[in-house]
């Protein structure tokens, strides 16, 4: 561990910031972290257990697995049933429940050809190894992963790998945050902004939170000191009656983001409406593949449509993702819905807030 990493985990420094938080907190603060990695980090590091009762921590729609709509999961399952298709996916989609609680793991056990890959480039190699099949990579994720997948499509094009396809269900964070803050029932005072996503997008797309809605927001890294400092910043801004969008992750995030990553993402993808689990269709919150790269678009090439799927009965994941309830306020939590038998996506994903409550809360 290098000295910076050590410093960002330093117990003394953490205790000192917690002390400041306790001293300066004036009334209840309800903050939402928008990123699944933050959710896990807050629990795993033990930060949550150190926070005073007046700080309510909520998890928003920033776990890519959680927000993948059940109709999208149904499309994955339809795809997996096709004899001429090998599905390539990141591992955390394998257990996401679709219609009738079916998932990719069950489909694999029934004979579907599904390969868990560690990088989209592995899927291109898989396509090279199986020239007689179509290898479809399940493109799920936010701005963090979209540029890499865009680069993969370009590489496949340059290499003439014509049997590699991407099913793009990518989503963008700022549009869904607009929906959140425009909700009249919004019960969030501050936002912890997703560090990985902001490495690509920068801060600009989030300025509206403070400028238009007066809500403080901090781009945050994933170490305990990062997280605690952000909470202290929320408190200080509120105590001064200020609201701004600030960068608390300057070691990784430039205010303008990563122009190269933005450029390749925008070259291959274009904004489109996107389905979010529990939240419905959100305008311009997704990324579809541009016509110029249409040969690599699984939707076009295979004529895919999204099957109609009835909503999950009793599942409150939508309310959890909007910060309206905590996972343990859902009537299904720990009773019907467990990691072994997940009803909704927030329980199945390792980064889901319900799974985190179930796994880490003493």
């Amino acid at each position, binding site marked *: 561990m290098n000295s910076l990493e050590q410093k960002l985990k330093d117990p003394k420094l*953490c205790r000192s910031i917690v002390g400041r938080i306790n001293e300066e907190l004036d009334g209840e603060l309800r903050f939402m972290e928008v990123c699944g990695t933050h959710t896990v980090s807050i629990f795993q590091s*033990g*930060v949550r*257990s150190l926070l005073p009762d007046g700080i309510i921590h909520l998890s928003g729609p920033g776990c*890519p697995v959680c927000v993948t709509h059940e109709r999208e999961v149904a499309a994955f399952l339809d795809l997996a049933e096709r004899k001429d298709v090998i599905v390539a996916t990141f591992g*955390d989609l394998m257990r996401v429940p679709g219609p009738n609680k079916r998932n990719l793991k069950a489909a694999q056990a029934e004979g579907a050809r599904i390969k868990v890959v560690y990088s989209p480039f592995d899927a291109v190699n898989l396509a090279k190894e199986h020239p007689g099949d179509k290898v479809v990579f399940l493109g*799920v*994720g936010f701005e963090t992963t979209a540029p890499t997948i865009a680069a993969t499509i370009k590489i496949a094009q340059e290499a003439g790998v014509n049997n590699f396809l991407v099913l793009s269900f990518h989503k963008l964070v700022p549009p869904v945050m607009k929906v959140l803050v425009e909700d009249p029932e919004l019960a969030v005072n501050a936002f912890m902004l997703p560090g990985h996503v902001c490495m690509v997008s920068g801060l600009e797309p989030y300025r509206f939170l403070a400028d238009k809605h007066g809500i403080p927001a901090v781009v945050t890294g994933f170490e305990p000191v990062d997280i605690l400092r952000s909470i202290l910043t929320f408190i200080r801004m509120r105590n001064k009656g200020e609201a701004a969008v600030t960068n608390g992750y300057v070691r990784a995030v430039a205010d303008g983001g990563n122009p190269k990553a933005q450029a390749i993402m925008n070259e291959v993808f274009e904004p489109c409406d996107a389905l979010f689990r529990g939240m419905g269709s959100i305008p311009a919150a997704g990324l579809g593949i541009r016509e110029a790269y249409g040969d690599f678009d699984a939707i076009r090439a295979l004529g895919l449509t999204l099957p109609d799927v009835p909503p999950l009965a009793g599942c409150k994941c939508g309310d959890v993702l909007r910060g309206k309830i905590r996972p343990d306020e859902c009537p299904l939590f720990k009773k019907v819905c467990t990691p072994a038998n997940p009803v909704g996506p927030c329980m199945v994903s390792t980064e889901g807030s319900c799974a985190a409550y179930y796994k880490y*809360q*003493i």
Partner: protein
Amino acid sequence: MSQKLLLDYGSGGKASQRLISGMFLKYLGNDRLNRLDDAAFLELSGPISMSTDTFTVDPLFFPGGDIGSLAVHGTVNDVAMLGARPRFITCGLILEEGLDMDVLERIIASVGRAARNAGVEVVTGDTKVVPRGAADKIFINTTGVGEIFVTPGPSGHSAKPGDAILISGTMGDHGLTILSKREGLSFDAPVESDSAALNHLIVRLLQEIPEIHVLRDPTRGGLATTLSEIALQSNVECFIREKDIPVREAVAGGCSFLGLDPLYLANEGKFICILPEKFADKALEIMRSDVLATNAQQIGEVRKDHPGKVVLETPIGGHRLLDMLEGAQLPRIC
């Protein structure tokens, strides 16, 4: 080109005999096995510990070991954890038609070497050859028996509030090695399996310390799952401190990269020891004097506040549950 294994070798006829006498007896032979009767004649007395395990690891060869030595270590360790001296093991093989004969020979030689080092004899075995595609190269089943020499022997049911929780070394080495080798991943620093027979160290520990409540090897599911099992079996809280759990830097880095937790990764040459606090220092001294446990540490203690649960104190002083794993760990999207 290497000679390939044919279905004939599992026929029970002359080809089988050639395989047995030319390869198996060459590497595994001893007075009991060499008799080639229908069963092995054994002399055992008193209470006995017995365990069986089947090894299907892919890849067959990995840094720090191979499926052959692993099949011996895994079973020898399981037998030893009950406070027993492992004496004899069996070796059942399911082989895929077309397997390279020299691969088979390397594995059998490794079984023989590991058994000799562990001080156990392979006393009986079985070989089945299945058509290509019906199995993945080679599966090995080993069953071991040993004589229990302490009563009451250690058991997952015997942890008591006030006990110290020790582990014999770094966590996650085997699991990350297999995963990285299987997926062709490489890290800045190389990782290596910890596969090893622990029985000699276990015997020493049990001979010198009169009261050891629990011995368990945290194999599949890793430290977190094994401690969860103990907490449930003994109806106690296992309280552990993350800062005291040794994890190699390369393993921690690899896990961080892949979104995995080293506390859930398999170990094949490590054990958990739970014993009265007053014996903890002596146990650590004995463990650290052995090359297999130089990084032994006390990582926590048994409490009664949250029966059936494992509570982890994080380096910054927070507390959280350390639950059993649901299914396999899967790499994350971002």
